[in-house]
């Protein structure tokens, strides 16, 4: 009973870590897609492409801020 519980706990931990890894890897791709969609709307409204690209940089900034915040909180726990 104890051994099966330990194995089950270990499997759940692996599952959690894998899910978090997949989320981490897909994060960058999602940010890129959101940024492109954002730029498309601005260009449709008549804005120059270079201006739309510059404005959409906030997405990358926001992503960076969130990653930085998560990293710093993770180090704090340690």
């Amino acid at each position, binding site marked *: 009973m104890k051994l099966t*519980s330990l194995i*089950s706990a270990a499997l759940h931990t692996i599952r959690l870590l894998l899910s978090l890894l997949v989320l981490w890897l897909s994060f960058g791709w999602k940010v890129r*897609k959101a940024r492109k969609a*954002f730029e*498309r*709307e601005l260009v449709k*409204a008549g804005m120059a492409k270079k201006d739309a690209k*510059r404005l959409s940089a906030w997405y990358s900034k926001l992503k960076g*801020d969130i990653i930085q915040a998560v990293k710093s909180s993770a180090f*704090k726990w340690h």
Partner: protein
Amino acid sequence: MIGEEEERHSKKKEEDVEELRELLSVVSKEVPALIKGIIASVFSEEAGRDMGRAAAAFYKELKEAGIPEDVAVKMTEGYISTFTSLGEVMKRAIGGEKHTETKKLEKELEKEISRKIREKLAEKGLAEKEEKEEGEEEEEDGN
């Protein structure tokens, strides 16, 4: 007696492991789903499109009002910066940094407390001085 204690200890360990297993089971399901939901609300293609539409509508209004291109772009940038403040908020919330206003309040509170302490000390100092003077007068009277 010792055997009973060992059995109790072992049972407790088993219960702890079982509890941990249940906790991990819930956490491994809920936490990724929660994070996925948070990411999707801001970083999905649909969210990007909606925010782009909002910024585009703002920009269009400015252009229709006759505002020059470069000014309209700058103003739209300012409008978009309200979204980036979310990053600052999250930074503070997760990183535990204090808000500027909270820092200001703490400084003011510190000053106020120091002032009160100084006042009290000054009062105490004066009171001691008066007591000393009274004591000296009584001595003189006694002599």
